[in-house]
């Protein structure tokens, strides 16, 4: 696609429910990143994919968070048993791996509200 696409744009869920957030990166971008932006905070790194593998999951805040990537393309971030502190904007970015000066292109994010 022309840019990084994320869906849904907004999601309201009840505490305790599971949610899935989707990211469709730019075609040909082998690296994919998930970040979380809480109100009034900067962006917090969650996980990084190179192809379908995740060499760095260090930012996932708890075992309720998981992510996968299939076919070297679409990625899904899953949050199980959502809590109110999970409310945030979840941003996905993709880039071309291995190039010097690589730029990360961001999607418009999914705003998750847990009520």
């Amino acid at each position, binding site marked *: 696609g022309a840019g990084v696409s994320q869906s849904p744009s907004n999601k309201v869920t009840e505490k305790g429910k599971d949610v899935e957030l989707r990211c469709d990166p730019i075609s040909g971008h082998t690296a994919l990143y998930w970040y979380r932006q809480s109100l009034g905070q900067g962006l917090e790194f969650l996980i990084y994919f190179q192809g379908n593998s995740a060499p760095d999951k260090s930012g996932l805040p708890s075992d309720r968070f998981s992510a996968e990537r299939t076919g070297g393309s679409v990625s899904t971030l899953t949050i199980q048993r959502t809590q109110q502190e999970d409310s945030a904007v979840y941003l996905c970015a993709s880039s071309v791996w*291995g*190039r010097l000066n690589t730029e990360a292109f*961001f999607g418009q994010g999914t705003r998750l509200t847990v009520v």
Partner: protein
Amino acid sequence: AQTVTQSQPEMSVQEAETVTLSCTYDTSESNYYLFWYKQPPSRQMILVIRQEAYKQQNATENRFSVNFQKAAKSFSLKISDSQLGDTAMYFCAFMKSAGGTSYGKLTFGQGTILTVHP
């Protein structure tokens, strides 16, 4: 671990004037990149300017320029001839550079909300 600090939560400037946003960082890495990203209300993060740490010359992109002071670990953004469309949140970000290729993981500051007034 790297940290990035933006000490100005909010800034404002009149249209056509110049404004400088501050950023400091802490790292033990010798090779890295620094970025300024803009996030308008649409939430879309847009790269404004990039600086490679091994380059002494400050990066410029049209009305945007940086003052990179490596020894002081300072990386400020200057916006000249401010325009209404510059109104956004601005993030300073750090990225390690390992083995000649960039790893890609960005460490962000807390952001500065910039408002340009007509």
